């Protein structure tokens, strides 16, 4: 619990409307997009000026009070989950686009600007900001930087780290650092890469300079149906090795197709075991050639049906199902748990097969939505949080999926971050030496461990405990025990 002295000092820094203390005011901040984890914060700071942010940080440093940063709270790994005794510092009021330079194709923005708001603001210049996480209508660019967010167009356009030029951050020491520049590189170490995706553990972002890209002249979507998931998987590899770099390449399995169709009426073939959505973009001519090539490859890969969207409306319809997949699957059960593993694409058949077996073992259905182009799986595990033990089962199932991804040479998280959710699986993906290096990096920026403590990187002690109770590739020795 945060001391009344600190609260008093916060009150001296922040005007009343920028500081939430009452239970009913702080309660909405108890969770982020990963609602299975909740912890009511002691106090929520919503500063409006950089001076206030600096003063809060100085106070926290002096009193050794932890800080958890928060943007829009759409993250799905519990990165913004409040920590006991910490100040929850939300940056959402920093919501101004500071400047747009259409000739240089850059925009300077504050961290609380919504992802989609950037693209909307540069429409007059026929430019856009490429990373498009599905929460883009609400999520903030500051959160995107913290999580190194992706979206459906990563294969061609990269993640946040590839689309920002510079950040101005504040360290716990109260130092302002400008990292990167409006040039394409900066002298010294690539701290921009290090800070992007650092989950609020190293510094707080005050300003971001993003790259803007010209809007493609044309976009076209091809939908293909397959009677076997494996065929869909190999079609993905064939498209890519066939020389086409699609802007988006999405796959859905039968359960996801059924749910999406019932919800969004996208016209998906219900007899298919899997569908692929292939989006190509570029100039008129490039798109025409790519569509032809993609259709040939899909046909050769055994697609049972191939449709090219005949106009914008149909294109939107094809995407509508995919974009609504999460809420659609959400109707199938009271709760769902979204995973975020990545795998080399070639491992897809093996991973899906094992996932089906696990689904039977845990008696929990799973729907698969897959950023197939970049190997990013989003299995949605269906469960009912009101049934005792079901959440724990879902969590175990999820952990097994992530560890399987690692076993196939993949990663426990492609774009959602580690947060609190996957902290134990970090022990599976990395050895002690690497984890120690991560703690070392943390200590370079935050020696007292005040920023978002307990997130993103597990202690070696935790890993030892996790390892002791966990048999890789097999079952838990004591499945009734709660995991850490």
């Amino acid at each position, binding site marked *: 619990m945060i001391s009344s002295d600190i609260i008093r000092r916060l009150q001296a820094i922040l005007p009343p409307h920028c500081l939430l203390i009452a239970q009913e005011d702080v309660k909405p901040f108890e969770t982020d997009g990963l609602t299975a984890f909740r912890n009511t914060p002691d106090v929520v700071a919503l500063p409006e000026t950089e001076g206030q942010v600096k003063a809060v940080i100085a106070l926290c440093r002096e009193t050794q009070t932890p800080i958890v940063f928060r943007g829009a709270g759409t993250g799905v790994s519990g990165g913004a989950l409040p920590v006991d005794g910490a100040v929850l510092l939300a940056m959402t009021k920093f919501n101004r686009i500071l400047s747009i330079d259409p*000739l*240089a*194709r*850059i925009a300077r923005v504050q961290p609380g600007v919504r992802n989609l708001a950037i693209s909307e603001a540069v429409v007059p210049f026929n*430019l856009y900001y490429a990373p498009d996480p599905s929460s883009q209508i609400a999520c903030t660019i500051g959160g995107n930087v913290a999580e*190194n967010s992706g979206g459906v167009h990563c*294969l061609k356009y*990269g*993640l946040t*780290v590839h689309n920002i030029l510079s950040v101005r951050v504040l360290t716990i020491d109260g130092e302002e*650092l*400008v990292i990167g*520049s*409006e*040039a*394409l*590189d*900066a*002298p*010294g*170490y*690539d*701290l921009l*890469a*290090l800070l992007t995706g650092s989950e609020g553990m*190293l510094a707080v972002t005050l300003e971001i300079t993003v790259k803007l890209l*010209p809007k*493609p002249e044309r976009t076209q979507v091809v939908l293909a149906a397959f009677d076997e998931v494996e065929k869909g998987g190999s079609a993905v*590899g*064939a498209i*890519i*090795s066939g*020389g086409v770099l699609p802007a988006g390449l999405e796959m859905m399995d039968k359960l996801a197709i059924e749910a999406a169709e019932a919800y969004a009426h996208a016209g998906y073939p219900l007899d298919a075991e899997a569908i692929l959505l292939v989006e190509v973009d570029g*100039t008129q*001519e*490039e798109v025409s*050639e790519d569509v032809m090539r993609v259709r040939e490859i899909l046909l050769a890969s055994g697609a049972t049906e191939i449709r090219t969207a005949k106009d914008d409306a149909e294109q939107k319809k094809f995407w509508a199902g995919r974009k609504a997949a999460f809420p659609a699957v959400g109707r199938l059960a009271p709760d769902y748990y979204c995973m975020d593993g990545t*795998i*080399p*694409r070639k491992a897809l058949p093996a991973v899906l097969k094992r996932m089906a077996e696990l689904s039977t073992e845990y008696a929990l259905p799973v729907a698969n939505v897959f950023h197939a182009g*970049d*190997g*990013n799986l989003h299995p949605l595990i269906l469960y009912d949080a009101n049934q005792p033990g079901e959440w724990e089962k879902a969590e175990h199932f999820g952990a097994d999926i992530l560890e399987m991804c690692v076993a196939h*040479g*993949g*990663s*426990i998280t*492609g774009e959602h971050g*580690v947060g609190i959710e*996957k902290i134990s699986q970090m022990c599976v993906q*990395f*050895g002690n*030496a690497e984890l120690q*290096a991560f703690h070392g*990096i*943390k*200590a*370079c*920026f935050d020696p007292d461990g005040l920023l978002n403590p307990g997130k*993103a990187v597990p202690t070696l002690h935790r890993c030892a405990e996790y390892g002791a109770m966990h048999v890789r590739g097999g079952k838990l020795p004591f499945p009734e025990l709660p995991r850490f």
Partner: protein
Amino acid sequence: MQALQERIRTTQSPLRIRAGGTKDFYGQSLAGDILDVSAHRGIVSYEPGELVITAKCGTPLAEIETLLDEHGQMLGFEPPRFGAASTLGGTLACGFSGPRRPYSGSARDFVLGMEILDGTGQHLKFGGQVIKNVAGYDASRLMAGALGTLGVLVQASLKVLPKPQSELTLQFEMDEATALKHMNEWAGRPLPLSASAWQSGVLSVRLSGANTAIMQAHTKLGGEPHLHGAEFWQHLRNHQAAFFADDTPLWRLSLPASAPSLNLSSKQLIHWGGAERWLKTDAAAANIRATVKAHGGHATLFTGGNKSEGVFHPLPAALMKYHARLKKLFDPRGILNRGRLYPDF
């Protein structure tokens, strides 16, 4: 690899990491006994359908690019080769990228995973072999451009790209200011641009992609097709062009692409759509740096000249503090490529 680890662990003196030795000219100073990593070579895995290649860092770039080429793929950052012996590790350690960089991304952008030996000989594996991976701090991209001062690069996984169906280079006669304006404006339009450079009154741009798309873009932009476009960019990429030939100090300026003409030297080659400007000049380092800094960029003394004035742009004290801490973390004894990046470490 064990021998390398042993050598690092037991050495009493600084080590100078070296493979092909084609970039000995680069950096502040060459100190220490040579740690030869050239034998640590070979392609570990490559599957065109994954768009990922993994290779040991002593592997010659030529070997990697030949293999990719056989499968219609390429390194999207088009790294320069300053000699036949140029290796993957040296390229990544220097963070060098070629003509395609402003349109496709830099060496660091294509890094997916990196294995290193730190300054205690410890083998660390960061990142991985998948295109999307946000587990843990991005220490692998941190290694790109760190000049081996944070670790000996032993293995890297890179994203690769499909090669464009065809390419066409167009040339236009115009002055520097007009060329800068055009390069920036064109980069903001949906054109299949993949390289651009201006020198001595001639703007050259490369278009890459489907034949029909290139022809259409040619119609839109005009310009004279270059008969030996591939060779032109190759020479620029590898610094074999006549511009680079004499002994005058060569400066590399990294600037916002839209920065105006700087008038720092009469001998200038503008690259990367305006974001990279090469100067041949004897001008004082302080003058160059002050001008470049005023325009939001930084300057590197690439070859020749007086290195005692600093090869790399000095860092603000606050940033240097974090650099020093990271150096101490990965190389506590300060033995790896000591003095190569900054004199202090």
